[in-house]
């Protein structure tokens, strides 16, 4: 059965006042401002409509929803007419029936007659409304040819627009504007000639459309429809689950026919996305069915050998034997594991348990090391919790928004749409980013300030903003006195007020005019609720943790913590970065961010797990490679992370992996890291398992199994098998039992259970006896750590400096259609939008080097060189170049260096001194790496039977 969804016709209204009216003789009480249409639906009275749906503001164009109101002349559109006290509404009268039939007849008049009786269109609202108003005959001539002859637009890979089926109700146009905020669609022409077009009638693919699919979802006539529905037919049942792309954590209905997913439709009740989605979540799930999926376990003795397919039993036995052999030969600490921010909380928890309990060491780390580890450190130090402070809904209450080192329209599109709506309603925006991201200026949204600082000067910039706040007397003194540690505050204040932090003094290295910085600081401090959203442009620096703390200082100094509309919020890159960190994936921390050296915490796990835990932290990812090269680290279990592509200084990573004796990769595909692996365990996609993901707002949501695991086991089941084979049996029948163990051992998760998630839809941790339904906004009234801790954040320039050999600064980011290292999105039609990584370079720098748009360039740092095509643009400032890292052929991380955050080792991806020069094609490294890849991916044919 499909999961039922009720369309109330117009959006919900919140009001303190209730109005009572009568609809068809029934008394109904609704909030003041509610439409008659919505009020009627509350009692199950469906008023016919075509242009109305509850995700869009009432429009009143289709004239099908007319009602009669006692004491008022004429008929009124129920979608645009608000309820009034004592109003008496009649939704079905002879007059209304006649009017509606007449309107419907006009709609139907320029559509082929047979459509009205085509059973294939039964799910179509046009068809349903024709039936609802009792339309049987059409008196108008049938020879009208306006839109019927128009060709279909099939340019978008995921959906089709058939103008013949369109009634120009403009729901798609409004969805694009109101929900997505892109304004890519319009009604062109007028009268009979009016029709829906994308941009200037460019076709959807070439237009401004970002393929979010909101228009497809809003279309009542199947003029806009998913190609998968055309190919497979309408789905029969659905399962609500959570998207596995970015940290927004959109809730989806996976709609299925038989055992095939037909489409993903964002779920209206989803508390993170409220029924919206982006091109990745809605459309780019085809990778799960891609022929590149490896569905059988494989082993090989040497990485130069071809792979050999084996049974699960054999693969697990081999892996366990190798790990045991290595530990016997090189010591207990010679092996480790890496958890994935792409996997579920339950899977992540099990991998770290495997390492700590079965391997008997703490050599476990997570891919969050390379993205948001400074967030964990910085926010824990200042506020007491390693997480963002707000829920996404909080942005509706923000008055001034700072976006720093993040590109929400590409990286977190659903949240960006939300933010754009708030900005159009009057909130002010400050963008701090070296690059001119879309939010700086995009239709109907314009930043009040863009501070295009030079990469690597975040801390100087944040100190300068704080300097203005304290020296111009803009602090929230009452908040600071009540909530923060006075000594730490006094020390920080004296530091930041120092003349070396003034905008004028830092201007030469940030390159941002001091006057702009001063104005931005004043706006943030005095403009009402100030909310900070930041991304990897803040964390992935040698001073990443310092910058996070500088943001926290700024928020505390201005009293912008502890209520809706304010806060400090990391935009998490991956679906479960928050969760993987929460689950004890770091070598020094058990779940809930409790240090491994705390005896009482260790005791909880020791008793439950029946082992003795090592009180010393284990190796971090970069240290694992160092140890491998020294010869003391020989075996690694990697679940769902492609470290060869995603970690910095690729050549060091590959050298480290090559020095190991047993690398176990568990993944959907033979990824880049698998080239260095000895055991391959097939992974399961998010559609194939049960579990939970925790999004950027600490929201824990259920991932539900939609189809059976294609390779027999969910990822957590494979971990259980490996643990059992190692002689440490694990006993779980279902992922919910793992969550029960997490709840029993982790105070912030104490109140979490699958049953509660089923009941409430989601909860935001901390969820325990004090907050049984979770905590949307943190630090209300009091910081988790007690008093807010100001931290002195001295700016230290990175050692990565430009010079005569490497005069440009490279920074990196991502693009809407691709996701991270592209393992998934490259295996979908999303590559139509971004088939390769390009190097963005300013026209001035390009001209100086004789580089032309679209030509190959060599990108070289002291770490290595790669080559890619140039894109000449003024989005980047002179002296700065930018690229994405979605394609393995580019190998962007060959160029990035070993520098990392002082506190957490998070790599300094965002600043690399480089030189760019014209090139003829791929670099030597790319060519030899490609050859290696071809060799390392060979799979042996099964031996002929003897």
């Amino acid at each position, binding site marked *: 059965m499909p999961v039922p969804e009720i369309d109330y016709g117009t959006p919900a209204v919140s009001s303190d006042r209730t109005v009572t009216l009568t609809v068809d003789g029934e008394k109904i009480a609704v909030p003041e401002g509610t439409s008659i249409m919505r009020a009627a639906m509350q009692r199950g009275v469906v008023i016919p409509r075509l242009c109305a749906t509850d995700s869009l503001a009432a429009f009143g164009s289709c004239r099908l929803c007319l009602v009669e109101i006692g004491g008022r002349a004429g008929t009124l559109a129920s979608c645009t007419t608000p309820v009034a006290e004592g109003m008496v509404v009649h939704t079905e009268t002879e007059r209304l029936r006649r009017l509606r039939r007449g309107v419907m007849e006009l709609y139907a008049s320029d559509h082929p007659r047979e459509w009205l009786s085509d059973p294939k269109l039964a799910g179509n609202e046009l068809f349903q409304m024709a039936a609802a108003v009792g339309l049987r005959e059409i008196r108008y001539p049938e020879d009208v040819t306006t839109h019927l002859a128009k060709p279909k637009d099939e340019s978008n890979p995921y959906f089709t627009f058939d103008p013949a089926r369109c009634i120009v109700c403009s729901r798609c146009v409004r969805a694009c504007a109101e929900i997505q905020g*892109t*304004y*890519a*669609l*319009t*009604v*062109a*022409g*007028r009268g009979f000639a009016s029709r829906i*077009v*994308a*941009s*200037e*009638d460019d076709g959807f693919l070439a*237009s*401004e459309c970002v393929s979010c699919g909101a228009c497809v979802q809003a279309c009542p006539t199947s003029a806009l429809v998913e190609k998968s529905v055309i190919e497979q037919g309408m789905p029969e049942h659905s399962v609500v689950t959570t998207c596995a792309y970015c940290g927004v954590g959109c809730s989806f209905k996976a709609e299925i026919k038989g055992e095939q997913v037909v489409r993903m439709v964002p779920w209206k009740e989803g508390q993170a996305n409220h029924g919206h989605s982006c091109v990745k979540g809605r459309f780019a799930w085809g990778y799960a069915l891609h022929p590149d999926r490896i569905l059988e376990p494989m082993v090989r003795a040497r990485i130069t050998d071809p792979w050999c397919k084996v049974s699960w039993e054999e693969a697990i036995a081999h892996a366990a034997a190798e790990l045991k052999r290595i530990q016997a030969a090189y010591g207990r600490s010679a092996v480790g594991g890496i958890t994935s921010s792409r996997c579920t909380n339950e899977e992540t928890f099990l991998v770290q348990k495997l390492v700590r309990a079965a391997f008997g060491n703490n050599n476990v780390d997570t891919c969050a090391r390379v993205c948001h580890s400074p967030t964990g450190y910085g926010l824990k130090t200042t506020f007491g919790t390693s997480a963002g402070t707000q829920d996404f809904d909080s942005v509706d209450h923000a008055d001034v928004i700072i976006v720093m080192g993040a590109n929400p329209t590409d990286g977190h599109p659903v949240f960006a749409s939300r933010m754009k709506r708030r900005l159009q309603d009057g909130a002010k925006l400050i963008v701090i980013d070296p690059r001119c991201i879309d939010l700086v*200026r*995009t*239709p*109907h*949204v*314009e930043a009040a300030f863009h501070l295009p600082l030079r990469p690597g000067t975040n801390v100087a910039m944040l100190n300068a903003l704080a300097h203005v706040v304290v020296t111009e007397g803009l602090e929230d003194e009452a908040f600071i006195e009540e909530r923060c540690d006075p000594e730490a505050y006094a020390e920080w204040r004296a530091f930041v007020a120092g003349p070396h932090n003034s905008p004028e003094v830092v201007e030469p290295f940030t390159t941002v005019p001091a006057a702009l910085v001063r104005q931005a600081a004043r706006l943030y401090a005095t403009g009402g609720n100030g909310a900070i959203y930041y991304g990897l442009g803040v964390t992935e620096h040698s001073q990443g943790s310092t910058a996070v703390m500088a943001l926290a200082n700024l928020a505390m100094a201005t009293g912008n913590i502890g209520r809706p509309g304010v806060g400090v919020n990391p935009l998490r890159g991956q679906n479960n970065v928050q969760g993987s960190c929460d689950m004890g994936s770091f070598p020094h921390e058990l779940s809930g961010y409790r240090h491994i050296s705390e005896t009482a915490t260790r005791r909880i796990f020791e008793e439950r797990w029946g082992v003795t835990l090592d009180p010393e932290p284990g190796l971090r990812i970069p240290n694992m490679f160092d140890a491998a090269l020294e010869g003391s680290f020989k075996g690694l279990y990697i679940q769902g992370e492609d470290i060869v592509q995603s970690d910095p200084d690729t050549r060091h990573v590959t050298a480290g992996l090559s020095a190991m004796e047993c690398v176990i990769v568990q993944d959907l595909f033979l990824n880049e890291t698998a080239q260095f692996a000895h055991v391959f365990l097939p992974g399961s996609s998010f559609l194939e398992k049960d579990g939970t993901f925790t999004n950027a707002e600490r929201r824990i949501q259920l991932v539900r199994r939609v189809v059976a695991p294609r390779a027999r086991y969910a990822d957590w089941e494979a971990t259980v098998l490996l643990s059992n084979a190692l002689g440490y049996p694990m006993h779980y029948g279902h992922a919910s039992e793992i969550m029960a163990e997490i709840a029993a051992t982790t105070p912030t998760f104490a109140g979490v259970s699958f049953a509660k998630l089923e009941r409430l839809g989601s909860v935001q941790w901390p969820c325990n006896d004090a907050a049984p339904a979770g905590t949307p906004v943190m630090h209300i009234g009091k910081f988790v750590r007690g008093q807010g801790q100001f931290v002195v954040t001295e700016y230290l320039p990175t050692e990565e400096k430009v010079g005569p050999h490497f005069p440009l600064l490279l920074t990196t980011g991502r693009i809407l259609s691709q996701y991270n290292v592209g393992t998934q999105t490259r295996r979908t039609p999303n590559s139509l939008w971004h088939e390769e990584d390009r190097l963005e370079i300013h026209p001035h720098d390009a001209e100086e080097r004789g580089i032309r748009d679209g030509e190959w360039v060599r990108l070289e740092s002291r770490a290595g060189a790669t080559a890619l095509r140039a894109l000449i643009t003024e989005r980047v400032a002179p002296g700065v170049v930018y690229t994405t890292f979605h394609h393995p052929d580019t190998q962007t991380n060959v160029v990035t260096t070993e520098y990392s955050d002082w506190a957490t080792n998070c790599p300094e991806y965002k600043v690399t001194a480089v030189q760019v020069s014209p090139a003829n094609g791929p670099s030597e490294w790319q060519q030899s790496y490609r050859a290696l890849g071809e060799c390392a991916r060979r799979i042996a044919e099964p031996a002929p039977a003897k």
Partner: protein
Amino acid sequence: MTDDPRGWAARVRVIVAGQESKPDRLLPVLRAMQQEFGHVPREAVAEIATALNLSRAEVHGTLSFYQDLSEEPRGRHVLRLCRAEACQAMGAAGLAEAALARHGLAWGETAADGSLTVEPAYCLGLCSCSPSALFDEEPVGRLDAATLDRLFAGAAAS
């Protein structure tokens, strides 16, 4: 920056800079372009969108809606013949068809010498003087074949 050989984009920037900063500047900008170039070239749409921070779709939607605005170049003169009810009742249809036939033009077409474009209009508010027309900005009432021929000839001569 895209190529701008005819200076349209540059002109858009000047026109926009001369406008008061109001939310609804699109129509005044489109009218100014129409007045200056006789049409709003498609090449200028992106620049108008950028200058006003609108989407190209929004500009295109508005531009294609209004009959006073055109995306294609028109003749040096524009003759708009009313075809609404009152004028039809006074024989406008036959009059117009005959005049178009005499001069070898169809609705919406521009004369080969670029002198004149003839377009239909649906009520010019001159019903009391039906059949009526608009020659460039000038209203013309009580049209007959002779007046129409004079308008065609006048257009060709200037």
